């Protein structure tokens, strides 16, 4: 199959069980990701923005094969990752890496940095001798700014600060020269003064590695900073509701939810922020994801609701402007 995407999700749905409806009731399930079609091109950076619980982490994990989708397909270089076997699958695993949100949980507590960063290289038997592995670790630690590397390689995770741990996680992720990296809320747990350092490091590495990034975040400001030259996708209750070039999406959002979200983001500029008004929604609080409204999932809060239409059938993702997709009946041709 031909595709211009490096990684592509086609009609992806991931359902999770969510406990019982009552003490003796049936188990309830809901779609964390609901019929998402979406791709990341070679060398491209895409930010995936959404509120907590919208399914962005699940989508990211499914796109690198850590979660098996209930329906739909994930293609890597045009091949279905769940049909890959043996060497091909192993190569995919090498090429697709993830950096997790919580650097306090994602690093092995009783292994040294040296072992943590070298584990992938060893597993895939990329380097034949210990000397070469060591040289590679030195190079990687230098690259992520953990200098002098000799000092950091013998440390345990608990001896490092949050920012340093996240750098170790980044070194591990890039140790196999991946082509596709999912970065999941990687600065959320990092001190404000250090966040930009981690983001700048990743942007710099991206140029060196020429890797594609799926950058997951709840923070529109951070999403914009990271994918300034790339695209941004907005997710709401399991669905991608808008995708476009980052700059265009931020300056000219189309979907009412994107508009509301952008109008609510606090801006670090008092001359602007005190004047800004949030777009009024019909309901402030999001619905329970287990029981979303029928039709467009934003219909119960949307100020532009067209009764009998939006609350009946889900709008598809249509190209409202070149390269700018939105799923909303206001933009149906």
């Amino acid at each position, binding site marked *: 199959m031909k595709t211009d995407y490096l990684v592509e999700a086609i009609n992806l749905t991931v359902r999770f069980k969510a406990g019982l409806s009552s003490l003796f009731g049936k188990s309830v399930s809901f779609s964390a990701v609901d019929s998402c079609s979406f791709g990341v091109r070679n060398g491209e950076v895409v930010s995936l923005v959404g509120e907590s619980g919208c399914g962005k982490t699940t989508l990211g994990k499914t796109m690198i094969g850590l979660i098996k989708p209930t329906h739909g397909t994930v293609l890597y270089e045009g091949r279905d990752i769940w049909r890959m076997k043996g060497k091909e699958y192993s190569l995919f695993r090498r090429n697709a890496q993830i950096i997790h949100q919580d650097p306090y949980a994602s690093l092995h507590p009783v292994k040294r940095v040296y072992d943590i960063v070298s584990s992938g290289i060893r597993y895939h038997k990329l380097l034949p001798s210990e000397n070469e592995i060591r040289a590679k670790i030195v190079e990687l630690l230098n690259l992520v700014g953990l200098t002098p590397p000799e000092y950091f390689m013998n440390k345990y995770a608990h001896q490092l600060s949050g920012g340093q741990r996240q750098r170790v996680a980044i070194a591990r992720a890039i140790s196999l020269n991946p082509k596709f990296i999912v970065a999941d809320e990687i600065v959320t747990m990092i001190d404000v*003064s250090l966040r930009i350092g981690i983001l700048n490091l990743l942007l710099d590495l991206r140029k060196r590695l020429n890797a594609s990034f799926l950058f997951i975040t*709840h923070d529109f400001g*951070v999403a914009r900073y990271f994918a300034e030259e790339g695209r941004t996708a907005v997710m709401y209750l399991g669905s991608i509701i808008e995708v476009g070039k980052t700059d265009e999406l931020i300056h000219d959002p189309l979907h009412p939810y994107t508009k509301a979200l952008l109008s609510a983001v606090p*801006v670090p*500029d008092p001359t602007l922020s005190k004047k800004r008004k949030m777009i009024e929604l019909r309901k402030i609080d999001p619905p329970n994801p287990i029981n979303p409204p029928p039709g467009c999932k934003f219909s119960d809060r949307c100020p532009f609701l067209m009764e009998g239409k939006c609350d009946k059938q889900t709008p598809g993702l249509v190209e409202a402007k070149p390269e700018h997709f939105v799923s909303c009946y206001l933009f149906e041709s």
Partner: protein
Amino acid sequence: MGEQKNFESIYEVENLTVEYVLRNLSVKAVNDVSIKIRKGEALGIVGESGSGKTTLALSLLNLVPSPGRITSGRIIFDGEIDVLSLNGEDLRTFRWKQVAMVFQGALNSFNPVLRIGDQMLETMKEHGVTNKEEGVERASVLLKLVRLDPERTMKAFPHELSGGMKQRAMIAMSLLLNPRVLILDEPTTALDVISQKYILDVLSDLRRKLGITMILLTHDLAICAELADRIAVTYAGKIVEIAKTEDLFLRPKHPYSTGLIQATPSVLGDVKSLKPIPGSPPDMFSLPTGCAFNPRCPLAADLCRKSVPRLEEVSEDRFIACHRWREVE
């Protein structure tokens, strides 16, 4: 500085030091802090985790938990109440009637098996409002003020409300006894962006309608930009700068404030290239000598490594603790 506007202070904090003693180690979470908080203002206290802002706020209520100890300083409320010498019934009344605090993660501090209305009534009863009708009336007024449906909310159990609704109910509850000061510790941290903005709107509404003094603790400068009249920036247990909100954002003077502003991304304006603050946050167990920010400061000089700068009023409404603030561009 001859012509000074005289602001009436609701709080005068003088040389406050709070220490946490762990075995033989001691940490000064609040280190020789002085600040006057003005009647009716919204003061933002900004700092990263561990900078001492929560401990400072707890001291304002004389509520520092063990093993923390207030080792020196004075806190005067409204020109007459010596907060740190209050105890027993006086302290209990002070805490709800004069000053109320909404704690971090407060949306989970409701009793899960009691209806919101009952919890509100119980609080009032404990503090002397025994007439039930009067209590219900008061609760309804406040719930309306935070834009909740009073009848529905009072009948609801906490789990029936969303995070944003619980936080607003908690704010209504903290206002039950008509306090003069409301302290909010990271009031929107656990909430989604839309609920957060809604709460910030509710809070500015409350200020307009009640004229209450607000103290807002947060790590997020952007939230202060939305709500605060003045901002105090904390670093390693000290206040390093106090300024009017506009002045702080447009003309920050302390190198740390400057660094924080340059490290905060925004969705508006041009994508400026952002710069991190070099180095790591301070290790509170072994602070550097002199100014605690000196290892990360681009302007650090010998003097900064030797002596601790004092917080001084350098112009009207502007306090800075830095030897080299004149050098900041």
